């Protein structure tokens, strides 16, 4: 992900074709982008289709450990989000389908690349848990340390 991706998300994930009084949404993608540029344990990715950002993925790759065993490192999803027009809860049909699935698949591939076996952990926002249940990711229940967001974790991909 480069600075211009962040700039474009900030611009075009908002309605630029109509005049709005939308307050600053307070997104902190730029903070995560800077983190990924400064600190190698953070990585930022954007899915770019038709020349503009369709989804974002921020991951942490060194500090988090598996719920099952502290010996197992994993890729932790700090944030995953899709553009407004790619969400079936808003748009029917969405402009692009399965953007979230693709980004999650990439997180697992990164986990493999890093030697973590495909282990990936994340805290789902309420309302998105259904997506992760359909992805057959193991559910570990609400996490009091993360505002009771439900923690999900993929185990290693075993042959």
């Amino acid at each position, binding site marked *: 992900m480069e600075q211009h991706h962040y700039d474009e998300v900030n611009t075009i994930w908002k309605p630029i*074709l*109509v005049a709005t009084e939308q307050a600053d949404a307070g997104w902190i993608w730029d903070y995560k982008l800077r983190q990924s540029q400064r600190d190698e344990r953070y990585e930022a990715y954007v899915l770019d289709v038709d020349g503009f950002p369709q989804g974002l993925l921020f991951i942490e790759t060194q500090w988090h450990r598996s719920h099952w065993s502290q010996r197992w490192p994993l890729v932790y999803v700090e944030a995953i989000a899709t553009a407004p027009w790619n*969400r*079936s809860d808003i748009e029917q049909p969405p402009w692009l389908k399965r953007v979230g699935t693709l980004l999650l698949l990439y997180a697992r591939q990164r986990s493999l690349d890093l030697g973590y076996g495909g282990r990936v952990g994340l805290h789902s926002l309420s309302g998105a848990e259904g997506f992760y249940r359909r992805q057959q990711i193991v559910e570990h229940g609400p996490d009091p340390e993360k505002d009771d967001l439900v923690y999900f974790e993929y185990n290693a991909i075993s042959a």
Partner: protein
Amino acid sequence: MDEQRLVDQLKKTGNLMDLTFDPDWLTEAAEDDGPVEAGIMTRPYHDYLKSLTHKQHRSLRLQAQLLGILLPELKQWIESWGLGLSFKPVHLAARQVLYRHLPRLAEEQGNWITALINENSQDLPIAEQAVRSQTSHVIAQMFTVEDWHELAEAATEGMSQTVLQISQIASDKIPATA
């Protein structure tokens, strides 16, 4: 995610992302994800989406459709300018200029955009899209003299940086003298 399919894919190519070329996976991809947001930092974005009106959502949809046409056309047009290493900074600057203009189009340009989106909805081959073929002409009209100067500056700056980088690389390669 079907774990067995992932295992099979790893055996086959060693890369999960190759699944995206698999027709079966693509068929499954016809399904919707629904909301996918994860991580506390996505909450403001989630709240923002909930705060949008129906009109704003509709506008976002049109925006995606429009950018899906304008941005590839803009890129192709700028590629034809033969800018070499200055292509990327000029392209990025031109996109920003375009975003600035879209909220305040002249009536004629607004009508053209409506026609463009209507034509796009007909799923015609690109070669048969008469309105789309006018894109570079319309964008050229949209850009002001100041905008063109901005692009020229981006080109100059891009080229300068490239030359300076070459200079740095060349100095790094000079062997140390005894």
